[in-house]
């Protein structure tokens, strides 16, 4: 138990995970489809834009074999729209909603689509289209901060206005972090904060703090808790209902 890391994921781990996201690449040379562990990639055929995992896109970008087409939300227009939503007094309490889930597939017929080896089936929070050019322009995906940071670092020349995007990303991050912190003021043993729309990196950032705090609160309340349990145990022995034990336990954990 000598692992020095706090529980949950570190920032670099989150960043690593986000490299699974697909981005749209405009290839500058041909490349056959690759058979990878995560599933096969599409063959590259200039100038057709092709979705590729972010890590591969960055690799090709570094080798000047491709350009990356930034997603629609990662633009000055899209980000300022989201920023307006975040700073609006009417919506000050909530985070901007995350990207819409894909519509449920229609009636499945046969089994060929499903569980077949040549299809990467994405599961939330990884959405197939969250960071490609087909992404929604007015909603942030789960990995918005990481994708934005990586693209701005490695493919700044593919942006129309990289400085503007960078500034807006920083603004957004500050606004949302302050919202998160504000939410923690009300944290109590039984209270909760609605985290809809919060991104992966943001969760990783606050996880240590919130986890520690809630744990501390639990410790403070331990004596009361224990007495309650004893009472419940007695009740159970007496044959009365007492099934709430398990639920309480769940409530305490974040």
């Amino acid at each position, binding site marked *: 138990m000598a692992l020095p890391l706090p529980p949950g994921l570190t920032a670099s781990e989150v960043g690593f995970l986000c490299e699974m996201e697909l981005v749209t690449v405009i290839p500058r*040379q041909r490349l056959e489809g690759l058979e990878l562990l995560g599933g096969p990639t599409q063959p590259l055929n200039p100038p057709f834009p092709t979705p590729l995992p972010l890590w591969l896109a960055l690799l090709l970008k570094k080798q000047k074999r491709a350009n990356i087409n930034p997603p629609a939300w990662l633009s000055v227009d899209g980000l300022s729209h989201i920023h307006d939503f975040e700073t609006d007094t009417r919506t000050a309490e909530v985070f901007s909603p995350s990207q819409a889930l894909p519509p449920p597939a*229609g009636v499945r017929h046969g089994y060929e689509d499903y569980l077949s080896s040549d299809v990467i089936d994405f599961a939330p929070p990884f959405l197939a289209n969250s960071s490609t050019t087909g992404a929604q322009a007015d909603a942030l995906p789960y990995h918005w901060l990481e994708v934005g940071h990586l693209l701005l670092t490695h493919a700044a020349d593919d942006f129309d206005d990289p400085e503007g995007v960078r500034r807006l990303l920083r603004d957004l991050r500050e606004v949302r972090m302050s919202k998160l912190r504000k939410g923690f003021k009300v944290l109590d043993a039984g209270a909760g904060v609605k985290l809809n729309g919060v991104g992966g990196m943001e969760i990783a950032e606050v996880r240590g703090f919130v986890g520690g705090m809630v744990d501390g609160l639990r410790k403070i309340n331990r004596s009361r808790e224990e007495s309650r349990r004893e009472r419940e145990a007695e009740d159970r022995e007496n044959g009365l209902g007492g099934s709430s034990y398990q639920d309480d336990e769940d409530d305490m954990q974040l």
Partner: protein
Amino acid sequence: MSQPHVQRTFLTSDYTMASRLRGRPAHAPGPTYCSYSNNGSKLVTVGSNSLLRVFPHNSDDEPPVIDVWTDNHFAVAAANDFFLVGSEDGSVTKYSLLTNSLEEILIRCTLPIRDIALSPDSQWAAVASDEIEVKVVSTKDMTQVFYLREHPRSAKNVSFDVNNSTVAVSCTDGLIYIYSISSEQPQLLKRIDGLIKILENDADASARAIWHPDGRAFAAPTATRDLQVVARADWKLQKAFKGGHRGDITAAAWSPNGALLATAGADKSLVLWETRSQKIIKSFDDIQDVILCLQWHPTDNVLSYTNTNGELFMRAEVVPGEHAKLLKVALQPAPMNGDPLSDVSGNAIRAPPGHGKPGVNGWDGPSENDYVDSLLDDAMSQDGADFIEDDDGAGYAEAPNRNGKRIANSIEGPIAKRPAAYSVWQPRVHEAFQPGSTPWKGNRRYLCLNLTGFVWTVDQETHNTVTVEFYDRQEHRDFHFTDPYLYDKACLNEKGTLFSCPPSAQHPAVIYYRPHESWTSRTDWRINMPAGEKITSISLSDSCIVATTTAGYVRIYSLYGLPLKMYRQKSTPAVTCASWRDYVMTIGNGPVGGDGSTRLLYTIENVKRDETYQSEDILALPDGFELKSVFFSDKGDPCIYDSEGVLLILQHWRTPGQAKWVPLLDTRTLDRLASGKKEESYWPVAVANNKFHCIILKGGEAYPYFPRPLLSDFDFRIPISAPEDDDAELTHGNQLEEQFVRKALEHSLQLDLVENTNATHAQKQEVPVLEREVDKVLLQLLANECREGEERGMKALEIATLMRDRTGKMLEAAGKVAQRFQRDVLAEKILEVAERRLVGIVDDDDV
């Protein structure tokens, strides 16, 4: 009837001589009038003495003189071979212009003649005298006379409109009376009050209504010394030419094409106006006497006028340099309220070669609007008299004579007065264009933009620099060269780049091909076109090169410059061409359609097999739609994109007579435009991978520019139903239906390909896959119907019978779907269909 030879060419030195302003003493001092013959070769002047003079145009010689017994002539009107003179003694005499001698006395009045107007076809003369009635007499037969009697006082001026059917009588009571003489009895159409001033019979000021050459309006001088335009359709006041004169207007005349107006005032002024803007172009300050009569030369830049001092001026180069081109443009519309401003300034003059095509894909022509307007006007005019447009002055729209017959010699047809002036109807011909190219903007343009790469050129004054860039940088290397030939067309594909240039003084038109790679040292080649032949479009495929030329030829070469074949295109002028492997598609202007523009016809042939698949078939474009681009899809099916943003693909084109254009995508119904906020258009690039590749143009741009915009792609969506609906369930059903039609189309295209060519194994494999795709969509549609309810069972069964699969698997699946939704009757019936199919019993209607 022999016509005097019309001398239209002249030396410019004549003009510089004539441009010295020097009045020609024509008559004794006194009111003098003049009139050009229809072809402009002669100018007749009459004055106060008993002489008539006939000035030949463009000559300083002493003019022939006709001695007459009358004096004080107040009116003259010349046709091609005769002229009429009205004198104070009340006689209208007809003189021959061929022999310069008296022919006859046409009509006599008791009081002095004040004005004579000849109808544009020279068949009728309207005579205004100090008598109350206006006489309209046939110039051929003096016994045929109409009397216009509805006005209460004598007429000051009369004028005919361009259709020979309406006479405007400017009466001395200050009203203009409009008479129709198209019927047996002249009819008063309208009294127009408050326009002209009350004038004395012998006043210098004019009240003449001058009909604009487009026939939709006339203009008349007002009491406020303006020239007011009045529409013929409703006799309402339109625009006015204001503020040009400080005295009453004494004469006014439209230029032969209606683009300019000249007016003269009693304050010894002469003003030139631009019709479109009603602005003064030039005001002449060297006028010594009051001008009484203004006459434009029918073709040349010459304005002649006579004054009160017996002098004649023939003013050459009267329209100053920068406006002189206004005289050359086609008929201009009269200035009406609410008319769109038609641009006469820049578009009518073709840009010099090498400086792009201003309307590269458009109908070229300055007066787009007035065709339609004049057609509409005619249809709506009150009496319908001008339903037939007398477009060449041949007189077939004239009023029948007394016997109800048309005048016989009208067939011989005097040369139309003002040849290029009015109602010259011309079919609108689609301009040739090169798919994938843009016009000059700034000093650069794209010569070719496709999925392989792009070719652009920069104008460096003396030469161009051409740059060829590729998307695939590994496969090809970008190159750049200096281009002294000024190439204006280019094609690019995986194998090479093709250029062509227009002919110039140094070289004829040239085709230049440069392969991208070769195993010999030098393989690029040039081919010179025969002298005078220009290239209208080129195309390059994997195996051949096609060029269409102004001589109407289609020239086909191999990739190494070997001429493979050459033939005359059936429909010319050529518009464009496209090719894919051995398939060549040429498009030309065909017969004229109902809207006055030509129908485009296309021909598709296979050069190698020497088979023609579609011969002069119609390119399906509704009225008002224009062809924007034509190209082959990556699977080799011809596609077109029209000006309304619809992409169409040609189905069944390998069977003669079977081809039809199927819309693949209507870009106006794209989801991204649904909000209505975006204003964008799409510049077609290609159809590949079952997607439409284009460049999105924002803010009303018509062509892509630099820096090179990104390519965008859109999935096909056949416009089966209204694009979006709030009802998600309905939308899903619509989507499935659209998908069904689209997949069926894909299947049929692929089936055509496999059946008609030596298809590869992969292509053959594609057909059953696509067939299964269609069935899958049908299965989804079936499930949709089953979900809707029991009552949709009939439709569900129909869907099941549409299944293409012959193995019975799909029908089995359909049965299962029906069972899952507990539609047992339906499931039974589907099973029945499956069984019938299995044993080979085919329904009567299923053949």
